[in-house]
């Protein structure tokens, strides 16, 4: 199969205003969360590595709006957006990222391993490409149980070159698993351009070569992502097997906080913020269907929620020493 033209995005008219508001709320929450973390990180109080999702909000939310708690999601090292889109609690997330006991993982995972199985969020993953083999397993569970559920694997442009991602795609085709491979092409893997590291014409085309429907969409356009994901999820739920989506966007921050980013044109981020802001694009598209003040209210509430989360996290206790040797095994 060669990569197919992206389906015509049906646009905001296809979604009822409450759904539009919900999607925007999630995007706004991701944005507020990440921009705040960018600031918090400068205080030195955020341990370890943090990778921010700002600029890619429309991808996580455009996909996850099709999912329920019983659908599964495997994430990347850049996982905050996926968590929020999948419905994880931002207070518990923030506690986790600060390494505190009330965190989603009791402070044992941190940003690179946030998970909430009750929401179907199978974890951020610090091994690039790690989500794909795991997600096909979650899809196998759904297939075996005949539950009609699906699984989604998120992978970056850099991760798209990892062997186990290719293996997972082939396995998914062979077993016709209800899974969706979402490739978030934000132009770079660390400091290396996707135009260098991906040898094929596009990630979508390479995925198509594995024998599944595959499209490339504008990952800053919520509606484009939403439409493509809708088709893929419907296919999967209908038992028709896997699909791939390459969603192109730009990350607004460095790979890590402190990254000088001299592998990018000096104005690349500024232009992305000005011209390809997924939230601004969304607002423009829904003008007339969702009142501007409602959107502004959502923005304000997101900021407030995140602020409360940071306060809670900062006040929260670190894990007790006794936690160290707990939770290695169910029983040993």
């Amino acid at each position: 199969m060669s990569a197919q033209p992206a389906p015509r995005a049906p646009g905001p008219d296809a979604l009822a205003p409450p759904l539009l508001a919900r999607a925007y709320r999630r995007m706004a929450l991701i944005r507020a969360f990440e921009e705040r973390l960018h600031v918090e990180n400068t205080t030195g109080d955020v341990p370890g590595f943090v990778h921010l999702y700002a600029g890619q909000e429309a991808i996580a939310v455009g996909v996850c709006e099709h999912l329920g708690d019983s659908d599964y999601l495997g994430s990347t090292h850049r996982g905050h957006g996926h968590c929020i889109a999948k419905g994880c609690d931002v207070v518990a997330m923030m506690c986790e990222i600060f390494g505190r006991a009330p965190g989603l993982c009791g402070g044992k995972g941190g940003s690179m391993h946030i998970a909430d199985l009750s929401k179907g969020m199978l974890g951020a993953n610090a091994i690039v490409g790690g989500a794909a083999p795991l997600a096909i397993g979650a899809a196998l569970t759904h297939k075996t149980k005949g539950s009609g559920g699906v699984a989604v694997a998120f992978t970056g442009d850099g991760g798209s070159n990892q062997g186990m991602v290719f293996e997972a795609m082939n396995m998914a085709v062979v077993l016709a698993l209800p899974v969706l491979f979402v490739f978030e092409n934000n132009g770079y893997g660390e400091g290396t351009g996707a135009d260098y590291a991906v040898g094929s014409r596009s990630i979508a085309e390479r995925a198509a070569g594995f024998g599944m429907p595959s499209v490339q969409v504008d990952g800053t356009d919520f509606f484009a992502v939403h439409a493509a994901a809708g088709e893929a999820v419907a296919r999967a739920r209908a038992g028709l097997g896997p699909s791939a989506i390459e969603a192109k966007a730009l990350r607004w921050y460095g790979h890590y906080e402190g990254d000088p980013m001299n592998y990018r044109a000096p104005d690349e981020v500024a232009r992305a913020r000005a011209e390809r802001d997924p939230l601004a694009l969304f607002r423009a598209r829904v003008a007339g269907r969702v009142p501007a003040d409602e959107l502004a209210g959502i923005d304000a509430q997101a900021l407030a929620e995140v602020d409360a989360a940071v306060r809670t996290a900062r006040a929260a206790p670190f894990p007790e020493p006794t936690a160290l040797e707990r939770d290695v095994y169910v029983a040993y």
Partner: protein
Amino acid sequence: MPKRSMRAAINDAIRLEMERDPNVVLIGEDVRGGAGGTGGEVEAYGGVMGVTKGLWTKFGSARVIDTPITESAIVGMAAGAAMTGLRPIAELMFMDFFGVCYDMLYNQAAKFRYMFGGHARTPLVVRGMMGAGFSAAAQHSQAPYNVFTAVAGLKVVVPSNPYDAKGLLITAIRDDDPVVFCEHKLLYGLSGEVPDEAYTIPFGEANYTREGEDVTIVALAAMVPRANAVADKLRKEGISVEVVDPRTTSPLDEEGILESVEHTGRLVVVDESAARAGIAHDIAALVASQGFHSLKAPIQLVTPPHTPIPFSPALEKAWLPDEARIEAAVRTAMAA
């Protein structure tokens, strides 16, 4: 009790657990054999060594899942399925292949529970064959259970006989943690009494295959029959050898080993896994740190040399610890 080979005992365990629990699925290369091709709907292999024979015929393609040659996707898929409600048994065929898929085992499955703050359970069994003795050369003869044992979050089973294999595998399948189940090629044909019904053997409980007073041999997997033979031979000479088969290296029956050495005062460890940083070293370190005052003599390590496994039978025979080397180690321990 009926006699069965270890191969049959393992097959038994999988079959019984698949009958008992619809969430148990078997995933691997040619665990059925015959998918695709021109032969029609057949079960062509039942595993390359015939260990899973009959299971596809009984349970069908939804539960006995043949895969492409794609170990990362096999172990990863099994891990993902385990954390979402299935109880997969993933076959690695030869344990030597862990090198192409180890991330999914050691960085993922083994760590989910801890990384996710105790909220995950990953009831996964990864099973496959290991060990030298078949002239299968350097990439198909290894016994890397030392590597798996070092990983917190994994449990590791190294059965030495059909009875144990069946009971331990049933325990493994019912266990809520990821378990690596290592089947020694040389033992597949070994026959022993095995009940028809399902039974479990707890992890972390050593089996004393010989009781003795003078020296303790701790031996694993294919080394156990060899240690037993040495014990039987030396008993006739009046040297009383206790043979301890830990059966699982993680958890390890530390107490059982320490008690035996407390009793005998002498320790020989026979381990195929490695000449460096192997299980022999792990057990020796345990005793040298926690059972030191029991020791009357230097601990004897009987391992292969620090070389890859040679193909030629002439060399491979010398590579794998044999009865002569075990006997010599016991005599050295006795002489000290």
